[in-house]
């Protein structure tokens, strides 16, 4: 463990390895991909088993499935409008994929795929490509008026248009980095405090056990905080997706 080297290897937990043994090695199937499959399967199974009985008065799992459905459905309709129903499955998939990815990442030895910028970046690019495609499909070339606020003086065009374009392009960047940074930071903190406990014990012996209670308490509090962050970041990702889709559908 890291304590033996008396350094804190806070980043080792993000190291990508192949999953699923030899098969995974042969097709470059990473351990993060294993967790993606687990997350997607959890969502699908929860929905399937929850809705199996099709009860008029729902049981617990069915109530959970229905609440998740209603929550995202309301979010889509509120943020995007009536057209939001078309994007509902996409936002639902995005939200629960990220949420479950964040949550199962909190278990020890489980890989957190949302802590990888390549993954969050790909999701953000997916969102922005979809948003741009939707805008182009609905408004055609009129979409480019999005980069020109109505009534702005023409003299300022060289200033405003680049700013608008940069702000548009920075959307996926902020979207991906926000999620990636939050998850990475939280997991690094866990690792730092946990390793600190081992270092205290290794260096001070019996007295170290007493002092190690400090980082332990911090890590317990941190776990509660990270659960909140897991929900919050999934929600932020989904809400921002909805807001971007609203802009794409309505232009301003």
């Amino acid at each position, binding site marked *: 463990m890291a304590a033996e080297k008396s350094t804190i290897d806070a980043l080792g937990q993000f190291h990508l390895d192949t999953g699923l043994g030899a098969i995974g090695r042969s097709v*470059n199937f990473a351990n993060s991909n294993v967790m*993606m499959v687990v997350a997607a399967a959890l969502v699908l199974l929860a929905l399937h088993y929850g809705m199996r009985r099709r009860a008029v008065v729902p049981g617990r799992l069915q109530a959970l499935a229905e609440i998740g459905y209603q929550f995202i459905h309301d979010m889509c309709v509120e943020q995007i409008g009536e057209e939001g129903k078309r994007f509902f499955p996409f936002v639902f*998939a995005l939200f629960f994929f990220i949420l479950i990815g964040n949550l199962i990442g909190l278990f020890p030895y489980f890989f957190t795929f949302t802590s990888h*910028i390549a993954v969050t970046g*790909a999701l953000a690019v997916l969102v922005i490509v979809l948003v741009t495609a939707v805008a182009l499909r609905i408004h055609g070339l009129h979409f480019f008026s999005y980069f020109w606020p109505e009534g702005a003086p023409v003299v300022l065009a060289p200033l405003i248009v680049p700013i608008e374009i940069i702000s548009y392009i920075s959307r996926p960047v902020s979207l991906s980095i926000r999620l990636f940074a939050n998850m990475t930071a939280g997991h*690094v903190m866990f690792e730092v405090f946990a390793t600190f406990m081992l270092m205290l014990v290794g260096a001070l012996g019996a007295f170290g056990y007493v002092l190690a209670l400090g980082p332990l308490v911090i890590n317990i509090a941190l776990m509660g905080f990270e659960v909140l962050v897991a929900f919050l970041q999934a929600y932020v990702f989904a809400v921002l997706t909805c807001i971007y889709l609203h802009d794409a559908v309505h232009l301003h």
Partner: protein
Amino acid sequence: MTRLMRAGLVALMLAPALAPAWAWAGEGEGMPQLNFANSLTGSQVVWLAIIFAIFYVLLSRVALPQVAQVLEQRSATIAGDLEAARGAKEQADLAVQELTLATRKAHADAQAAIAAAVAEAKAEAARHAVQLNQTLEAQLAAAEQQITAARGTAMAALRDVATETASAMVQRLASVAAPRETVDLAVGAVLAGRG
């Protein structure tokens, strides 16, 4: 360029959290997230695309319509039940109205029957009274006739008695037998004088 910019932004955002990590991470690979030399960093995105696509298709084609169906079914059931309840209430209201009407009608009928009975009884009583009056009057008239007749008889007898008495008195006082016709005339004159 983008990679550098990204790394810079990441470092900036993570600075407080990663400060100890950067210090102690040593000469390892740095952040595994930014280690694009590892082919898995890129390949996981390909697998992400495949997994997410399957996830999306299964959700939008199978899982979510299932939930939507149940929710629709429920709202339909509730709406149907409400409709049925509304119908039942309408029927009950109608029945109550009918009942009220019937009660009112029965009340009116009873009132009319009572009034008719009372009127009939009154008419009967009136007829009875008239009949009684007639009978009484007839009896009264008969009685009066009898009285008049009796009186006439008595009056006729009175003249005879008076004549005889006067004859007897004349006989006693004057010891003459007055002729019956003369006495009778005198009595008649006196009686006529008295009325």
